[in-house]
């Protein structure tokens, strides 16, 4: 009967419903459950403070200080809005309208606090906090700001931090960097950013359909990043930077036996604290546009002609290929003639042997040697000594310099190699370019009888010390030959007519080589002084003055530095 039909249809309908229920609730239940969670749970991240940077004795070079930010949580602002903002503007001494505009512009979800003023003074923070009962949506947030207690000393070594830029974001977002992350720029801050970074924590909150926070579900505390201990000695660093004040140049001190950098300074320098000061924008842009490039780390990024310092390389190559022995002499009348042109020397040296030529820095001797040995051979030994290649120091943006190759150079510039080019090469002019660090490493090699160390600036990450730096290489050079060079360098200091005589400090075994390199254009020459000290530690050093004039100026600085360090008991 008809009733039966209806009845059966009804049963069928119910069965369909039942089946569908089973489908939604059982089969796809998990899926829907997840969706329901997703609807209501939000995650906010909290950034952890950065690890500190310390010198080898534990002095803090980069730290975090507690700073206060004033923020407003949009939830609940409506009623108290005008009074809240007038109060804020009074306490913070900021224009009320601007505050409101900023608030409107930056607000997002209703539970996300809107940052209105960064790094306010403690008194301001206290005042705001005291009035919180009146304005419950006012929030004083604590943040950590990077602080460099040594200001400009060591700026290049340390680098600075700032908000990450888009380019790096793209590369690094898989590692957890978000647009508001801090990132190191330059120096140790950049190179070891991954270790210094604080570990992110987070807050898990429950929201309703309007995105309003209902309650706190979970909290993961953010953790501080790892501290990094440098090989650098703060005392040395400070002394070095002070000596370069007002000048433009580099001082590097390195342990000749293991490559630990004891001091690395570049001038002109800057105060890295300005990058974190929101009021100091103008200073920051001034730094970027300054004509003398204070942000440029001349120690590893600067490439300059080595000048007379390069003579060591020529001497070494001549001795090693047995073109001469140590007693070979040449006569220097003050100039050298080749192809109708006169190549000058600083003095009329008369007859010079190898030792004397290095001690007195005679160009003519080396013009002769250069032609004898040939540019190709010089190239090889220059590379053996580490010039023209990276030292792989753990700082970013190192340059590798350039040593001209007789044949390859031709193809590049299309010009023939002339004998005159060899002459220039022999005295470290022409196209040759080195970084101060390369020269410091070279000196260490000479001092240690052929061990090429790997320069590095860090000693420990967290509590673990870095052991991997035994990638020191033994360069296959005749030790006796090196001893000859060493003796010559010592002579340069000890001999009263030695170019480095100013360094003859009582009680210290100092050896070195000066260099005066002509720079292009009308500017003053560059002044070099590279050498090493043997004593408690064997320390190789490099002093460079960009457009510093005579190398004597570099010697003076080096001497002051050595005296200072001896006074401090380091040497």
């Amino acid at each position, binding site marked *: 009967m*008809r*009733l039966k*039909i*209806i*009845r059966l249809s*009804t049963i069928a*309908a*119910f069965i*369909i*419903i*039942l089946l*569908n*229920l*089973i489908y*939604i*609730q*059982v089969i*796809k*239940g*998990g*899926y*829907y*459950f997840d*969706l*329901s*969670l997703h*609807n*209501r749970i939000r995650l906010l991240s909290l950034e952890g403070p950065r690890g500190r940077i310390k010198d080898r004795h534990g002095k803090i070079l980069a730290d975090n200080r507690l700073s206060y930010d004033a923020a407003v949580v949009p939830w609940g602002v409506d009623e108290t809005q005008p009074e809240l903002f007038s109060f804020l503007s009074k306490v913070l001494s900021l224009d009320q309208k601007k505050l409101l505009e900023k608030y409107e512009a930056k607000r997002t979800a209703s539970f996300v606090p809107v940052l209105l003023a960064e790094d306010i003074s403690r008194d301001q923070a206290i005042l705001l906090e005291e009035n919180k009962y009146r304005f419950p949506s006012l929030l004083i947030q604590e943040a950590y700001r990077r602080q460099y207690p040594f200001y400009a000393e060591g700026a290049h070594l340390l680098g600075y931090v700032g908000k990450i830029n888009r380019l790096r974001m793209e590369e690094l977002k898989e590692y957890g960097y978000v647009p508001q992350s801090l990132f190191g720029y330059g120096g140790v801050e950049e190179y070891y950013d991954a270790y210094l970074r604080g570990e992110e924590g987070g807050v898990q909150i*429950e*929201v*309703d*359909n*309007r995105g309003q926070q*209902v309650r706190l579900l979970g909290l993961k505390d953010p953790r501080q990043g790892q501290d990094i201990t440098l090989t650098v000695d703060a005392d040395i660093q400070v002394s070095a930077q002070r000596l370069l004040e007002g000048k433009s140049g580099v001082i590097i001190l390195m342990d000749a036996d293991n490559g630990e950098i004891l001091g690395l300074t570049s001038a002109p320098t800057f105060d890295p604290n300005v990058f974190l000061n929101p009021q100091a924008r103008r200073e920051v842009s001034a730094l970027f546009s300054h004509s003398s490039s204070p942000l440029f780390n001349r120690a590893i990024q600067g490439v300059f002609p080595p000048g007379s310092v390069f003579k060591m390389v020529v001497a070494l190559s001549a001795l090693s290929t047995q073109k001469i022995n140590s007693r070979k002499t040449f006569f220097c009348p003050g100039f050298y003639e080749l192809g109708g042109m006169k190549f000058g020397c600083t003095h009329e040296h008369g007859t010079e042997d190898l030792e004397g030529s290095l001690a007195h820095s005679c160009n003519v001797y080396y013009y002769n040697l250069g032609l004898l040995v040939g540019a190709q051979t010089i190239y090889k030994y220059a590379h053996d000594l580490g010039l023209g290649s990276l030292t792989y120091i753990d700082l970013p943006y190192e340059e590798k310099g350039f040593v001209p190759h007789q044949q390859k150079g031709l193809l590049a510039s299309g010009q023939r190699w002339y004998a005159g080019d060899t002459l220039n090469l022999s005295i470290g002019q022409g196209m040759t370019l080195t970084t101060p660090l390369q020269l410091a490493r070279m000196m260490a090699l000479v001092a240690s009888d052929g061990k090429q160390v790997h320069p590095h600036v860090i000693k420990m990450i967290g509590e673990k010390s870095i052991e991997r730096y035994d990638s020191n290489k033994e360069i296959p050079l005749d030790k006796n030959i090196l001893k000859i060079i060493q003796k010559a360098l010592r002579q340069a200091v000890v001999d009263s007519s030695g170019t480095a005589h100013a360094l003859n400090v009582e009680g210290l075994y100092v050896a070195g080589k000066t260099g005066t390199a002509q720079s292009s254009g009308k500017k003053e020459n560059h002044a070099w002084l590279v050498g090493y000290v043997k004593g408690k530690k064997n320390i190789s050093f490099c002093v460079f003055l960009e457009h510093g004039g005579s190398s004597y100026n570099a010697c003076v600085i080096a001497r002051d530095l050595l005296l200072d360090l001896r006074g401090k008991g380091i040497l």
Partner: protein
Amino acid sequence: MGLAALYSASFQNIRVTQQVFYDQLFCAALGLGIMYFLKRVDYRKFYDLAYIFYGLNILLLLFVLMMGRYALGARRWMEIGALSFQPSELAKLSLIFVLGRYFSNRRPTLSFNFASKAQLLFRDLIFPFLLTAVSILLIFKQPDLGTSLLLFGIFLIMLFVTGLEYRYLMGFTGACLALMPFAWHILKSYQKDRLLVFLNPNIDPLGAGYTIIQSKIAIGSGQWAGKGWLAGTQNQLNFLPERHTDFIFSVIGEEWGLLGAIFLMYCYFVLIDSGFQIAEQLKDKFGLFLTMGIVSILILQVVINVGMVMGLCPVVGITLPLASYGRTSFLVFMIMMGILLNINRKRLFS
């Protein structure tokens, strides 16, 4: 059970006040009273009153259209003093009375000749349809698509029960279907959206599709045993709109899970099936039609509402009997229960 669900829906939230619960509670009490009262009232009295009742209802509907309270984009409520009620709910009842009376007076006729065929049609089909149509139109204009379709459904089922020959039924349905494209244009845009979204809820996840998606999330996330009374997150945190009315089943699904949902469906099923059992044994035509009318309302509302909430049907604004909030609706259903009880009684004693 419906009461418990309503409590949850209105618990602790800003949009829907607890008042809703108390209202419904009151109506429940009142309704129960009415139900028991009607149990004793001879339902045949309604027979006499049928036309008058219906006519009154029509008037009420007209009134509503003209002066009714406007809420949620529709004029559905009449206010008398401090109380308001929905005539469209009453219309369901009055329609049953009217159709019941009308159909019970017809005898199944045979087709003699053409002339009388037309007469036949007229009597058995068209006239009752026209009667119904008046209500449908008035309600549609409120606008309340759901209830008007519901009335149409009631008509169809009761017509089916009259025993009208299949070909007429088919023809009629065919004609109606043919009119659908025209009907499409009469629909308001949001109603059209609802139909489109029914086909694919993801077209408009924040607008028309939002409700269905949220509803499915709510039901699905209840899984076996639900999240617990008052603990439905979709519901408590306001993700689910209309949860105290059309979507109360979602709340039940979320909080009581599959088991709860099945239990509720079972309750309805028992109710409906007992209706069937009563109907089968009736000889009295009027009683039969009344019973079937009531049963049909139950079937249609339950199936459509649950289907709607699960995404099986487009959202049409049909509430779940006795569970969704709606005082008039609740009372009307209680009246219907009372009548059923009376019919049952009479059946036993006749």
